[in-house]
């Protein structure tokens, strides 16, 4: 356990360092944010002043050093655009992204796992085959295209659901959430569904593969031979074994949900940090970009850690930190 944590933490530190350096240098080479931000009729003196104010006239390594020093104290610098601490700007938007991602994951689990079970148990039945066909489709449809279609169908044509934005939010434990109000929920459904589609297909496939594999196992036969009712054989014995890969893979995929939220948030104008970072890339707001990446990467690291711990809890055969 200790060794596992040490390994993880040291690896993460290296990643964060390399990542920040890469992005720092990368953004530096794309261009100068002042070119975009400054009013076009500003005088060169004004330009020089802005560059100086934001510290962009210092050599790159010095800028990086300043950043590093700040970052160690939890200060990622002020956003060029918002003139507020980058961390704060992002953390303001984090709940929205997390809510979206969690909801999408929930949808994927609620629909994916039962459908996958059915597909696995009725593999040769038309139901099973059609579920699999659907899952191939779900795998193939690019997220952005589905997003467009959802808006066109459900907001524009049918006018059932709002086309974008987050709607009403209420505070839950100090975090604004939208799923507690009807309006908020209505805003949440389309983007979450959009984001969930791919993961649902994934969940279906994982579950199906798990069911098919596990149903062949001797322990299922042995459980039946004990006289257990089928509900318990499937519901406990098979289920618990399937959950191991499903939970771990879906857990890992949670990170990619957060990343893919970039696309969904852009389409549905969801005020999350994905949309923020796309906008920030557009204006080269380096503190935001760097802080976003560091935060998401830290999140991935934590998610992976949780998944690993979960894995070792779910599967008694595995000791923490062992290779799978």
């Amino acid at each position, binding site marked *: 356990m200790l060794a596992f944590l040490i390994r993880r933490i040291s690896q993460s530190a290296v990643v964060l360092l390399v990542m920040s350096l890469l992005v720092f240098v990368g953004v530096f080479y*794309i*261009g*100068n*944010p*002042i*070119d*975009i*931000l*400054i*009013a*076009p*009729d*500003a*005088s*060169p*003196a*004004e*330009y020089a*002043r*802005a560059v100086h*104010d*934001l510290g962009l006239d210092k050599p790159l390594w010095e800028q990086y050093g300043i950043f590093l020093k700040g970052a160690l104290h939890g200060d990622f610098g*002020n956003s*060029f*655009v*918002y*003139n*507020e601490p980058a961390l704060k*700007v992002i953390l*303001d*938007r984090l709940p*929205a992204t997390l809510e979206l991602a969690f909801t999408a994951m929930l949808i994927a689990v609620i629909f994916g796992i039962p459908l996958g079970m059915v597909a696995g148990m009725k593999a040769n039945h038309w139901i099973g085959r059609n579920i699999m066909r659907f899952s191939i489709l779900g795998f193939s449809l690019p997220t952005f295209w589905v997003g*467009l279609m959802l*808006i*066109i169908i459900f*907001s*524009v044509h049918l*006018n059932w*659901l*709002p*086309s*974008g*934005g*987050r709607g009403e*939010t209420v505070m839950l434990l100090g975090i*604004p959430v939208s799923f507690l109000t009807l309006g908020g929920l209505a805003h949440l459904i389309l983007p979450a569904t959009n984001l969930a589609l791919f993961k649902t297909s994934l969940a279906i496939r994982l579950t199906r593969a798990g069911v098919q594999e596990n149903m062949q196992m001797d322990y299922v036969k042995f459980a039946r031979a004990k006289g257990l009712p089928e509900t318990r054989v499937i519901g406990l014995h098979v289920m618990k074994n399937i959950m191991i890969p499903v939970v771990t893979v879906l857990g890992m995929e949670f990170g990619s949900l957060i990343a893919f939220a970039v696309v969904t948030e*852009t*389409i*549905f*104008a969801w*005020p*999350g940090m994905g*949309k*923020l970072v796309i*906008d920030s*890339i*557009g*204006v*080269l707001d380096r503190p935001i970009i760097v802080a976003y990446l560091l935060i998401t990467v830290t999140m991935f690291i934590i998610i992976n850690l949780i998944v690993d711990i979960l894995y070792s809890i779910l599967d008694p055969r595995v000791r923490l930190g062992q290779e799978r």
Partner: protein
Amino acid sequence: QTLTIGLKGEPTSLDPHFHNVTANNEQAIYVFDKLIRQDSRQKLMPGLAVSWTPVSDNVWEFKLRKDVTFHDGSPFTAEDVKFTIERIPTVPNSPSSFTGMVNAIKKIEIVDPLTIRFHTDGPAPLLPRNLATFNIISKKYGEGATTADFNSGKAAIGTGPYMLVEWKRGDSIIYKRNDTYWGEKQPWETIIAKPITNDGTRVAALKSGDVDLINFVPPADVAHLSKDAKLTLAKSPSTRLIYLHLDSDRDDTPMVTDNDGNKIKNPLKDVRVRKAISKAINRKAIAARIMDGLAVPAAQMLPDGYEGTSTTLKPEAYDPKGAKALLAEAGYPDGFKITIHGPNDRYVNDGDITQAIAQMLTKVGIKTEVNTMPKSVYFGKASKLEFSLMLVGWATDTGEHSNCLSALLHTYDKDKGFGSSNRGRYSNPKVDQLLEEALVTVEPKKHNELLVEAVELGLGDVGIVPIHYQVNVWAMKKDLNYKGRTDGYTLPRATSVAN
């Protein structure tokens, strides 16, 4: 009554002086007031100042409005004006401040609480124009206030028609009516401004009834929105000019070769070639096909009726034959190869316009390649003069020609701050001289004549190739009415309930 507005841009800050950018300035008008307002055609109108007169060549006197109070009830006085002007250059970390608007002022003299005098270095005919660009904040709340204080509402105490309730980052800004407002009665109790950057989503939000009013309707959607019985549209031409810069200074320009790919001497230095390019462009077709009619072919830098506009300049007519003839005359009967650059996320249909121009140039023999890029990359490269022919836009917020003349056609002069956006490095000493003279001529008529002359000269030289002015479109529910503005602002006070 609540008005929900879907906006293309989200402000980056509610500090009215932090970043001089449309989305911020627009929101600032909800809460604050300017000394001088611009009407929907950007003519100057009394705001917090009821009158402004030059006392001498170097002194302007402003009379301030009586009985104006801030949202908290404290009175508005000259002290607030002085404080605001002095604060502007000191806003920390500002990526683009209003300093340029106030640096002509050398001294501020408070004559009495409602009279204030600005002493300038030399004659400053543009001072009222410049003072019409920013908002006045309260000294009481503004002292020591940071950007965050404005965002949270702590310092966002103005004299304006609405009071800030809450800014939910990325989602909405909520305002409520200031019932003690000195100006026109506001029809809306609550305003919710929602930034919806994606064009399609914004339109869809209006159609689905999520918002009551949207700005920057994409041209392509105008046709079907106008057919929608539940909706209505408002259009207004804008001061946003789309034009081409041509590298007319260097002998060796990076993006031009002959037809076989060999370097040649910069053909764009030749006015005939520039003229040919202008003639090759079918502005009407661009306006009709690319812009869906929501563009007005341009001949100069501001539409008719603005200060300094020439009455003789007409949009260059589409004349491919003439263009070919001119090219042949300039020594390029078979044309040459060039790459046109343009942004793809900055102006309405900018990528398409760039492509269309390339198509048109190709048809007169100038084999044109297209390269478009995001603004984040584009403007940096453009400023580093990496392009030869580029598509850019310019919105003259001050509503008069000296602004664009000095930025675009005056010879590049880093020290004096001229030609800051002159990316073609066009240079004509005559134009420079006329402009500089106008800038110290306070007498309005003379001032105007000088500008007209400079404009006619510069454009006759094809210093830039104007393409069109964008037309701004708002769409709203049938029962609303919006008076479109040339500056593109979406202001609640211009919104009313239709009868």
